[in-house]
Structure formats: C-alpha cells, structure tokens
C-alpha cells in the first residue's frame, strides 16, 4: 500500500470518528496516605467516582503497561476543589495529574453469578475464577427502605446454635449484634449460622454474604475453605477488604456487601449478611476522616460515625409483600476491649441493633462454647419469629439458667444446701452442658427442640455432668437413626404436638435402656 492510500484511510477514519463528549476535570494538587486534594471538578457530587488520567504525557506503550484504570471516590466537597480517596495503588497518583469526573456514583456488580465467589470491596473478583459475565450494577450508597415498604419480623432465621435459637432467637430481617472480646468465638457463631443454612430448603434458603473487614487474609482463606468443605460456599458470597487494603476499601466493604444483598432482597429472596467486624470499619473510617481533615470528635472519631453504622444497618429489612417480601438479616460483629461494652462504638451499635449476643471470655475459658452470656444477651424482635415448638421448650430456659448462675456463685460460700437448691444447681449444671456445642457443627432446629424437650424433662439428670455432652450427642444420633420421621414432622409443622411429645418420651426410654452406662449417677 502506498503512502497516499494510507493518508486517505486516515482521513476517512477521521471523518467518521465518534462525537467526543466533554468531561469535567480537575488537577491533583496534593497526594498522600491514600487521599488526594483536587483542584477543580466543580460539578462533582458526593460519592462520585473519578478517574485518574495516568496516560497524560506517556507514550502509548507505557500507558498500556499500567495496571488498569485507577479510580477515586469523592468524599469531601470544598470551596475550590474536592478531596477524594484513591481506590487502588496510591503510588500511581502524582501531583499535577488530570482527574476526570465520571458522573457515576460508586456501584458494585451483583447477581447469581457472584454466589460462591470472593470479591473485593469494589466487587471485583479476587478468587482467580475470572470476571463476571453479566452482572447487575447496584449502587453502594442507597437509601434504606421506608416504613411503608417494610413489615414485621415473623420468619425465623435458624442459626443451628442451641442457646441462640432457644433463648436469643433471630428473625429474618433482624439486626442482631455479636459482641465480645477477641478470641471469644464471634466469627464462629456467624460462620456456623451460615453453615446451618444448608439445612434450609433451597427455595427459602437465605443467600449468605460474609464481609471480612480488616481481617488477616489467612483467616478469610480459612473461612472460605471451611465453607467450601461444608458445602456452604455455593450459597455464599465473600466480600474481602483485608487489613492490607487501604482504609477507604475497608470503610466501603460493608456497604458493598449490603448493596450486593439488596439485589437479592429486591427479587424477593432472603439474605443473611455478616459484617466481621464493624469496629475495624469504624477505625478505617476514623483514619480516612482524619486524613480528609474532618473535625475529630470523641476518641478522634468523626461526628458522623453513628450515622455511618445506622445507615448501614437500616438497610437490613423485611420487605412487605408488595415489595416482594425479601429480607436482609444483619449480623454485625463488634470487638470489645477487656469486656467493656460501654465503649463509644459498642454502645452506638448496641443502640442501633435489635438485640445483642454477648460472648464472654470467662465462659470461654471455662470451656463453655459458644461462650454466650444468656443473662445479658437479648433479642428484641426475634421471639415473634420463633416456631411454636421451640417456644414451648425454650420458655423458662433463660430464667432457669440465670437462677443457676446466681446459685452457682452462692454455692461457693455455702457448705450446706437444701435439697431444692441442690437439685436446681444439678439441673442447671446439666443444662449448661446440654447447651454446649462444638464449632462448625450447627444443629437443625427439630433436633434442638427434641433435645431441649428431653432436657426439660430431667432426661439428663441421671447422667454425670462430665458425660452429658456425650449423652446428648448420642441421643441426637439415636433420634436421627430411629426417629427420623418424628424429626421431619417437627421441622415441617414447627410445632411439638402431644403425639410428638409422647414419641420423644418413648425415644428417651429406649435410649436409656440402650445406654445404661451413661445413666449411672
């Protein structure tokens, strides 16, 4: 081809070149600690995504070597410019760089193809399984549904943990805080709840979202592996903003998680979302706010730290039938220091949520797992979602345990106890044992009902305290093997009928005969 032909082709292409749209632009005037000050961008809006123009002054080949587009998020609108956070590698931004406004607010991909995947706070896959093909984009910051669009909590969300399902029941659409010191089993409670959803029928099974904020990558990897082994990953989405991620991504991760969840809720599905944990998100937000030069308040947290958590947790809801009836149940986690629940962030989140599950170090060290303090744990709306069967066997359980704890303390000072008190203590000690549960082993609700019915009827009173856990496990297996029909009935109806009670009593007698060695006390 000769030169004139080439020139002709170029001319032709130039004539049919698309119309170019203008962008509002600004210039980076300062950059540091993941935050940029930008001069210009006068039409930028809050939470708008901006694009850093890295190719300016660079040759095409150099520009192609760069690692994809670099975005920022507008967080402060100021008199002569904006302040934004960099959603990526800070070292790629330099002073004088042009920044383009995109006119879009931050969105993340969502849809069925995200199930079983691990994504970052921007919804980008990080599990090496390739990009999403046809996702629906959901806005990260969205107003929560209003009063008219909601309805009360009435469907239970089974955690598979006896002490929770019996005494601190959680309903679909509820926000139940899991709070405790480090190493008390907060994540375990949340993960067991996710695993337990495999016992739900596929059509009503909640989609689970686990948001890891500021966690070690090794911990998240372990959780992913555990969920995979338990066949729970297929209905779970992991949003990972590890400790190594910029503060902006740690602050955004819970919002991204709930935005992903809203896709399913809007389509009438139930969603369970775990925020592990919001204390780290608050710390990330504090870091970001200080870098953005927002005025610091108590403990240097910004003034809107309460709003940060309230607007996040308000997005958990049970929608009315007109809106499809979907729900988002939130299990936020808060880490306390030395058991101090009166800290700034814990009290904020306690006041926002519909109940709390307190995990106590002392109980954990005594070998009581899960280390839930049922005396101070509460569920404000969950009881209306509890099945009749569970309500029947769990009524009075909390009181009995609370009385036992009081007597247990008293027992250390008194040498002679009357028979009634001694019996109550013996019964309480066994009940504590019955409620013990290993991690990663959630129990279906029907088995919980049967076991608690047996325990209420003094079934374990003749079993030495040290053998109660074993007896409970064997009894559960016995019911599975011999009384599967009974369990299926309890599950189906959600009730414990008189016939079912008689059958359990029969099962108790048969088990007692078959395992005489356990009943030697």
């Amino acid at each position, binding site marked *: 081809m000769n030169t004139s032909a080439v020139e002709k082709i*170029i001319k032709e292409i130039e004539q049919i*070149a698309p119309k170019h749209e203008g*962008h509002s*632009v600004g210039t980076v005037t300062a950059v540091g600690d993941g935050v940029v000050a930008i001069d210009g961008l006068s039409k930028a809006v809050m939470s708008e995504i901006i694009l850093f123009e890295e190719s300016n002054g660079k040759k095409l080949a150099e520009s192609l070597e760069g690692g*994809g587009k670099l975005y920022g998020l507008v967080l402060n609108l100021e008199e002569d410019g904006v302040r934004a956070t960099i959603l990526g590698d800070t070292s790629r931004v330099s002073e004088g760089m042009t920044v383009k406004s995109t006119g879009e607010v931050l969105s993340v991909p969502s849809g069925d193809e995200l199930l079983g995947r691990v994504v970052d706070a921007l919804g980008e896959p990080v599990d090496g399984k390739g990009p999403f093909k046809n996702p629906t984009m959901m806005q990260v910051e969205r107003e929560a549904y209003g009063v008219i669009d909601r309805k009360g909590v009435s469907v239970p969300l089974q955690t598979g943990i006896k002490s929770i399902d019996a005494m601190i029941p959680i309903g679909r659409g509820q926000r139940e805080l899991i709070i405790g010191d480090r190493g008390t089993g907060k994540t375990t409670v949340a993960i067991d709840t996710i695993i337990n959803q495999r016992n739900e029928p596929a059509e009503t099974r909640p989609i689970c979202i686990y948001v890891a904020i500021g966690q070690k990558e090794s911990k998240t990897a372990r959780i992913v592996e555990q969920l995979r082994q338990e066949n729970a990953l297929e209905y779970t989405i992991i949003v990972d903003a590890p400790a190594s991620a910029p503060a902006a991504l740690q602050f955004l991760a819970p919002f991204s998680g709930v935005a992903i969840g809203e896709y399913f809720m809007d389509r009438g599905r139930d969603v369970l979302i775990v925020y592990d944990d919001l204390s780290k998100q608050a710390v990330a937000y504090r870091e970001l706010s200080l870098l953005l030069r927002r005025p610091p308040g108590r403990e240097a947290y910004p003034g809107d730290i309460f709003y940060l958590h309230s607007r996040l947790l308000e997005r958990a809801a049970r929608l009315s039938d007109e809106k499809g009836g979907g729900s988002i149940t939130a299990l936020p986690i808060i880490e306390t220091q030395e058991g101090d629940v009166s800290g700034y962030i814990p009290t904020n989140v306690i006041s926002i949520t519909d109940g709390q599950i307190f995990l106590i170090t002392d109980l954990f060290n005594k070998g009581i797992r899960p280390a839930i303090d049922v005396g101070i744990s509460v569920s404000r709306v969950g009881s209306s979602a509890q099945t009749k069967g569970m309500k029947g066997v769990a009524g009075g359980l909390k009181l009995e345990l609370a009385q036992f704890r009081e007597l247990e303390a008293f027992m250390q000072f008194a040498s002679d106890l009357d028979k009634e008190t001694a019996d109550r203590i013996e019964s309480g000690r066994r009940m504590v044992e019955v409620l013990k549960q290993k991690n990663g082993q959630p129990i279906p609700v029907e088995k919980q009902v049967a076991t608690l019915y047996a325990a209420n009827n003094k079934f374990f009173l003749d079993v030495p305290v040290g053998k109660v856990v074993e007896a409970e496990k064997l009894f559960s297996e016995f019911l599975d093997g011999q009384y599967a029909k009974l369990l299926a009935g309890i599950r189906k109806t959600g009730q414990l009928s008189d016939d079912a009670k008689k059958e359990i009593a029969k099962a108790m007698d048969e088990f007692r005969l078959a395992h005489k060695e356990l009943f030697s006390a």
Partner: protein
Amino acid sequence: METAYAQALWKMVERGMEPKKAVHALHEQLTNTGRASLMRRILRAFERIAERELRKGQSTLTVAREHDERHAKTAVKEVLAEFEVESKDLKTLIDDTIIGGWRLEGNGRLIDASYKTQLLELYKRATSAV
C-alpha cells in the same frame, strides 16, 4: 489557615488595594497576633491560588504535530463556545504522545479526541472481553 489568609490577600488586591500595601497590612496583622512565621506558607498558598485563577481563563489545544493544528482548530470550533474561549486565545501545545487527533482543556473541562485515548479504550475493551 494559610489558605484563608492567602484568599484574603487575593481578595484585597482584587478589590483595588495596592499589592504592596495589602502585603504590609497582612504582615502587620500577623506580627501583632504572633503569626508572622505563617508568611512563607501564605506565599505558597497564594501561588496556588494565582496558578488556579490564571488557569481559569486559559484553554489549551493539544495536537500531535504542528500541521494538525489547523484541522484541530476547525474541529473544535463548535465546542469553543462551551469553553467560553475565542479561537485566537487558544494556546496550542504539541505533544507527540497523543499520536493524532486533539485534546482541548480549559475552564475545568476536557474533551479528549486523541488517537491515544481511543486506542487505549479499544485495547481495554478488547482485553476485558477475553
């Protein structure tokens, strides 16, 4: 804080005060309040404001080669009104890294019709579709 002082200085001069007088008035005020050491930082902030204000009235047309200028100026004729710039006030810059086409920047707006940007977009679309 220095930005606020620099802005005040800018406004004093803009409203007709003699520059020398304005600086002395500011210096005196700072000395009286024990903040004279802020002067250097105020200077830097003032320079930034000046740079920004000067940039406001400027528009730059970037082309890859000198002989592309005429064609580019014809192409941007329609959009110049949006930029509130006269064709004769347009500053032209030669930057061979844009390969071809043109880039018009000014008044906080940018229209990028460079070949480099189009090729980069094409590359990104092609590679992300794989």
